[in-house]
């Protein structure tokens, strides 16, 4: 690294050199990422193969208790006197069997077609048929249940194997009481995480899986089960969203995506630098009433956004206070089209977001600025640095380094910043194909697709696209910027 040629270079040369090196290393790093991914996938399958092999050897070497557990879960534990575990396993199997027979199988078997018989009205009677929505949802649920069952079944056998080993070595098995006690100690994480995991599974993982699958169906206003079934259509929706043409949303999608990225960029970096600037001003030695300034600015965080943003959006309306007063004072003759002209609307939104965002950054920057060692500035001052130089050489690098991860999460958050857009402009002015407006972000567009257009299939595809965009940004930032990871670099 310490190359004589490098040291001889002037500053711009160094910069170009580093930039070149950065891009030269890109393919290698991306390739490395894929190799890593491949390895972990390979490792996954290897693990499964090992587990299956394990099952055979355990069966071969197992006593009758272990072997019976292959068929009736928990029987081995029960026979060994661990009735708590045994009962849990047994109950799980019973519930699973009942579920599959009475409920799950019917849905799982129709998952391939999502139902064939629609509910119809024959004369005055309603003849109930299939319901694609239920089939898809419960089908996914059943799939998860089956996976969970296989895993539990495997655990049940593994426990038998371990118990057998313990018995063979002459030690005592854990009693049920000890099992329960361990839930407050060595197995405490199970107690703590059981409920949150269940909640996340039912209310996040299951719905997300469901919606990902919806992206591959034609579930929209023309296909509302149970009277009109929907079915699999492959990548049709992705094609519709991404390709141009009168029937497709490609042009709209590109515009909305572009505005989303522009918005996120400004909302993140403008607020970042302005907020830092304000924090530096307030923190300057000799400025009085520091607490008062901070408290005043923090008001925008404290007051619920639906109050402040709704009110401000009305302030900027054509008949709002700002326009009417400007007209009264004869500064303008026509109301400024804050919300009706696309350019103005975008500008206004970014402007108002500064009002909301600066205080937040000001708080963060204040905390970090106080952590910068004062002697750094002291020595810089002795060396004759002026304020700008100190800012460029000490404050900014330190801030950027420390808040690197924050900038990333903030950028992610702004891409999904629903509230500001929705409360200020609701995406208006409208006028893009696919019922999108000029200030719509992907997420507000998704919201409108879901709520007012009931175009679930496209909404699902938009959601996946948001995920892809965010995943790419996150991966790139995390993998390509070493300073985010390396804490030693700065010192």
């Amino acid at each position, binding site marked *: 690294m310490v190359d004589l040629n490098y040291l001889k270079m002037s500053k711009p040369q160094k910069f170009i050199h580093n930039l070149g090196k950065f891009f030269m290393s890109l393919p290698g790093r991306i390739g490395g990422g894929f190799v890593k991914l491949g390895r972990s996938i390979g490792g996954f399958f290897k693990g499964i193969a090992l587990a299956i092999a394990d099952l055979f050897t355990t069966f071969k070497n197992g006593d009758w208790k272990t072997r019976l557990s292959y068929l009736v879960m928990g029987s081995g534990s029960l026979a060994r006197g661990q009735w708590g575990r045994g009962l849990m396993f047994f109950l799980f199997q019973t519930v699973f069997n009942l579920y599959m027979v009475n409920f799950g199988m019917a849905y799982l078997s129709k998952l391939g077609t999502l139902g064939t018989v629609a509910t119809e009205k024959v004369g005055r009677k309603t003849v109930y048929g299939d319901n694609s929505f239920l089939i898809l949802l419960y089908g996914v649920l059943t799939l998860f249940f089956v996976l969970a069952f296989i895993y539990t079944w495997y655990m049940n056998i593994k426990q038998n194997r371990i118990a057998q080993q313990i018995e063979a070595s002459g030690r005592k098995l854990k009693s049920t009481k000890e099992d329960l006690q361990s839930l407050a100690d060595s197995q405490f994480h199970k107690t*703590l995480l059981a409920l949150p995991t269940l909640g996340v599974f039912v209310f996040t993982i299951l719905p997300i899986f469901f919606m990902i699958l919806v992206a591959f169906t034609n579930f929209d206003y023309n296909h509302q089960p149970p009277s009109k079934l929907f079915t699999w259509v492959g990548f049709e929706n992705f094609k519709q969203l991404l390709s141009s043409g009168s029937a497709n949303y490609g042009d709209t999608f590109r515009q909305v995506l572009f505005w989303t990225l522009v918005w996120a960029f400004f909302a993140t970096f403008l607020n970042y630098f302005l907020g830092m600037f304000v924090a530096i*001003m307030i923190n300057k030695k000799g400025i009085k009433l520091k607490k008062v300034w901070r408290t005043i600015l923090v008001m925008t965080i404290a007051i619920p956004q639906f109050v402040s943003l*709704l009110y401000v959006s009305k302030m900027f309306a054509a008949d709002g206070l700002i326009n009417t007063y400007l007209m009264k004072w004869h500064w303008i003759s026509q109301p400024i089209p804050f919300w009706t002209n696309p350019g103005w609307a975008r500008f206004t939104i970014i402007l108002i977001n500064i009002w909301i965002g600066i205080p937040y950054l000001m708080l963060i920057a204040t905390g970090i600025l106080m952590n910068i060692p004062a002697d750094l500035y002291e020595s810089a001052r002795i060396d004759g640095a002026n304020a700008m130089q100190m800012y460029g050489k000490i404050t900014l690098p330190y801030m950027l380094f420390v808040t690197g991860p924050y900038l990333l999460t903030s950028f992610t958050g702004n891409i999904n910043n629903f509230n500001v857009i929705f409360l200020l402009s609701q995406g208006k002015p409208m006028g893009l194909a696919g019922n999108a407006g000029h200030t719509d972000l992907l997420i507000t567009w998704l919201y409108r697709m879901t709520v007012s257009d009931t175009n679930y299939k496209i909404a699902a595809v938009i959601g996946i696209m948001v995920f892809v965009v965010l995943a790419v940004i*996150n991966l790139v930032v995390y993998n390509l910027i070493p300073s985010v990871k390396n804490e030693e670099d700065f010192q």
Partner: protein
Amino acid sequence: MTNNANVAAGQQKLRSKKGHERRVNGTIYTVLTVMSIVWLVPFVFLVLQSFRSYKLEKGGMVDYLLPKHFSLDNYAFLFEGSNFFSWLGKALIVALVAAAVAAVLIHLCAKLLDRGEDSHGRRIALIGGSLLAGFVALVAMTMAMQGFTLAGSWKNLAISLLLYALAGWIMARVYLKQDSKLLRTIPGYVLEDKHQGIKKFCAMFAEFGALALIIQCILAPMTMSQYVRWYGNTLTIALFTAVIQTAIVLSVSYSLSRLRFKGRKLIMNVVLILGLFPGFLTMITLYFLLKQLGLTQAGAVPGLILIYCASSGMGYYISKGFFDTIPKSLDESARIDGATRFQVFLKIIMPLAKPIVIYTILMAFMAPWGDYVFASYVAFGHQDGYNVAVGLYNWVNTNDFQNYFTRFCAGGVLVAVPITALFLALQKYYVEGVTGGAVKG
């Protein structure tokens, strides 16, 4: 001569430096003042317009700022058809009398104790007994205030008795436990140490106030106007969410930070990936799930609590970052002393984690006040299930908004004032959480 010139030049330099400093500070003050005005102006406007007379002027948007007639019309509208104030007044009077009676009884009981010999059981019996006696008297009073109709009053009596007894027992225990010196200080409970007495009286008043409100909710629910109902809905949601969500977030972040187990990294990675999906993607599925449970429309309040809490485990980052900074040696020494992990969590980590607990509670409490999307989708047009955000949003953004603009302002002020006060009071913890979270990412 040259020496003198040097000194003069130095002084000049110093003076110019001072002048420069003053100019810089002046600029900063100007900028900050302008910013403060910009920051506060919308809120001042909001408050001003909320006081515009509805009867004498228009209720919509007008082209002037200062109302020509100040009045409380808009606020009155929010409470129209609700007996909110008399309802609250009753509860407060009951609470005030209850606290006073309890204070007097404790005082008497302490006097009594001062003479007799010192035994723990005697103390508890005396304090508990006096508190209970006070409660029974108060139940009668509550009943009297409700009009004391005999029909169904036995059930009411039983409920309130039970609640008061429970509260009395808890309070007696708390007071006994709070400091072992308690009984020595009790003789001067109200009189001797004035400040302490007032403080304790306030605490008692708050407890009795909460109790009286609960009892009134059960025995004599108030008649509600739309706005009061929305406000009540939001408050209920916020309170429950704050408690449940905090418990969930703390347990998740504690186990991910302090405990090492198989699958820990996996959980963190899965949460990271799930977090990249936009939250509203799953709206229709959630609506369907809630509908299956009967928790939409009329059941929107419990439904929303469920939605806010169910996935809240995914927001563990900030508190995990905090837990990471607590030295591990604390856990280890406690473990060596024979504490289980559960005890370590409850008795060692939790007391140290007070700032982050408060931060989590604050965030969980504030979030439901601003949620529009899920709240409107789950309530699905059922007005009784709205929260304030949905209700007020609809006032502003539906056809009749010219009639509702100043009412919206009034409603917004009533939401903003308590929330802002709460936030500013706990600002310290918020700053701590936010800064910690930003640095650790």
